[in-house]
């Protein structure tokens, strides 16, 4: 199994939460008890550990943590979620918007999938996306040829017409970059690398 990638969702064993440091906020323990899933973070951690984030109900409820491979009982990547039906019958706007962009992204030939609250809801079956949630997407483009950049530009034009705001991150060779910034003419761009965010010259980042 390849190591977990940022944005993968991991279901943890029942015992995993026992390893939470005593100083962890109390909401973290109760969030894990209800939904024992964490999101893989992009962060440097010692060998043998996986950097993860615990998601609570509020936007400020995010807790950085790390787990070990034996804590993980299941792993779901964003691209595994494209065909997952939602657990609840009533779909919020962000999930409807996700359904609406599926054909376009499938046809683009790039690996892609939902992240953020929509991805979390589809993976865990626990209602997470709210009526005012954005749609977060990840698209993998390890080779940024001009054909790929053209396809990404077409994707952006389509996403701009979505029912909700769409936040699309592109995984490139150097890390993750916002779709808008990748397609911008700016001199420097911000890339989230495994060693933290970096400003890189556009030409170097997209090479």
């Amino acid at each position, binding site marked *: 199994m390849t190591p977990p990638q940022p944005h993968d969702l991991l279901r943890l064993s029942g015992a995993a939460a026992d390893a939470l440091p005593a100083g962890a906020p109390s909401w973290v323990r109760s969030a894990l008890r209800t939904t024992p899933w964490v999101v893989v973070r992009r962060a440097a951690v010692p060998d043998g550990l996986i950097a993860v984030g615990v998601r609570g109900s509020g*936007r400020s409820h995010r807790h950085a943590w790390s787990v070990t491979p034996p804590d993980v009982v299941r792993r779901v990547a964003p691209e595994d979620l494209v065909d997952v039906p939602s657990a609840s019958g009533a779909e919020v706007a962000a999930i409807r918007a996700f359904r609406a962009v599926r054909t376009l992204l499938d046809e683009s030939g790039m690996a892609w999938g939902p992240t953020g609250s929509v991805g979390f809801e589809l993976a865990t079956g626990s209602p997470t996306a709210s009526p005012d949630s954005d749609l977060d997407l990840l698209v993998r483009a390890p080779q940024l040829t001009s054909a790929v950049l053209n396809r990404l530009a077409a994707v952006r034009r389509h996403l701009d017409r979505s029912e909700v705001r769409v936040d699309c991150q592109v995984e490139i060779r150097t890390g993750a970059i916002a779709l808008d910034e990748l397609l911008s003419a700016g001199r420097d761009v911000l890339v989230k690398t495994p060693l933290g965010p970096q400003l890189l010259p556009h030409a170097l980042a997209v090479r």
Partner: protein
Amino acid sequence: MQTLNYEFPATQVARRAVHIGVVASGDLEILLAPPESGEPPDRATVRVRTSVNGFDTIWHDVLERFFARATLAGRWELNDFGATPGVVNLRLRQAAESATTNGADS
């Protein structure tokens, strides 16, 4: 949604208006405008609009540290979508560089 206002002393003046960053989660956009006539040329006024409440102290610390070095007067508007302090720092630096050099805008 929370709005925070700060003011810092400044010795330099932004040469031109810049728009840096993106509207994306974990990121922020920064609009920096040079002081208009009638506005003090030695103050940086900073307005932060953030989607994540309760980080006033961290914002103050990050901004104070930045404006202690880059003392650039003007109106700074930060629209934050849950950026980490590391990302905020990089974007602030990018905005200051763009506003003081003749390089390309965002």
